């Protein structure tokens, strides 16, 4: 199963999103968060992100959801440092954080491939919140 990693500057944002997603997927998905800095400040930490990717990667890949700006850079740095076997199957989703997390987790729980989960997650951008 594709793993989902939520990377946020704030552990509260990541934990709240995780809570929502887990309620919807009933704990069936390999999902974790890498949020805030090691000393509990707002920020992202490439070392923490790398460690979490390694933890949830089951061989089927990991899709990373990021919140703002430097979350992308920290995640790119983390991916660069991964072993080659994990590097090519760890991708960043270009998608809104909360909606993307919900879609990614649910589609992963259906057993879809990393490429399919990424595409469906990024398709979220096409939808208007107000319908």
């Amino acid at each position, binding site marked *: 199963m594709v793993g989902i990693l939520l990377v946020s500057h704030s552990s509260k944002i990541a934990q709240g999103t995780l809570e*929502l997603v887990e*309620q*919807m*997927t*009933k704990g069936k998905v390999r999902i974790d968060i890498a949020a805030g800095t090691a000393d509990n400040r707002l920020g992202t930490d490439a070392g923490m992100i790398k460690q979490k990717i390694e933890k949830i990667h089951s061989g089927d890949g990991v899709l990373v959801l990021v919140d703002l700006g430097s979350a992308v850079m920290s995640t790119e740095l983390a991916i660069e440092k991964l072993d080659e076997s994990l590097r090519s199957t760890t991708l960043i989703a270009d998608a809104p954080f909360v*909606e993307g997390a*919900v*879609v990614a987790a*649910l*589609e992963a*729980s*259906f057993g879809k491939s990393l490429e399919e989960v990424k595409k*469906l997650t990024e*398709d*979220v951008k096409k*939808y*208007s*919140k107000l*319908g």
Partner: protein
Amino acid sequence: MIQRNVKISNKLGLHARPAAEFVEKANTFKSRISVEKDGKKVNAKSIIEILTLGAKYGCSIKITAEGEDEAEAVEALAKLLS
């Protein structure tokens, strides 16, 4: 093609967890399945589309399935909402 009108009797409506359960069930069928409410038609297999439908308790929706397992699909999905 099979269609059925269903009134949502699940108190939570088609939100968050019930929506996820509905989409999960829809994904177990091969048929193309749609849900229509007030003239808006969405793909039953897409969580984001089902969530934008905003179907609440008491709403009437129309489930349409087309494919080899269309009858089972409509039956199972209607049952989830009742």
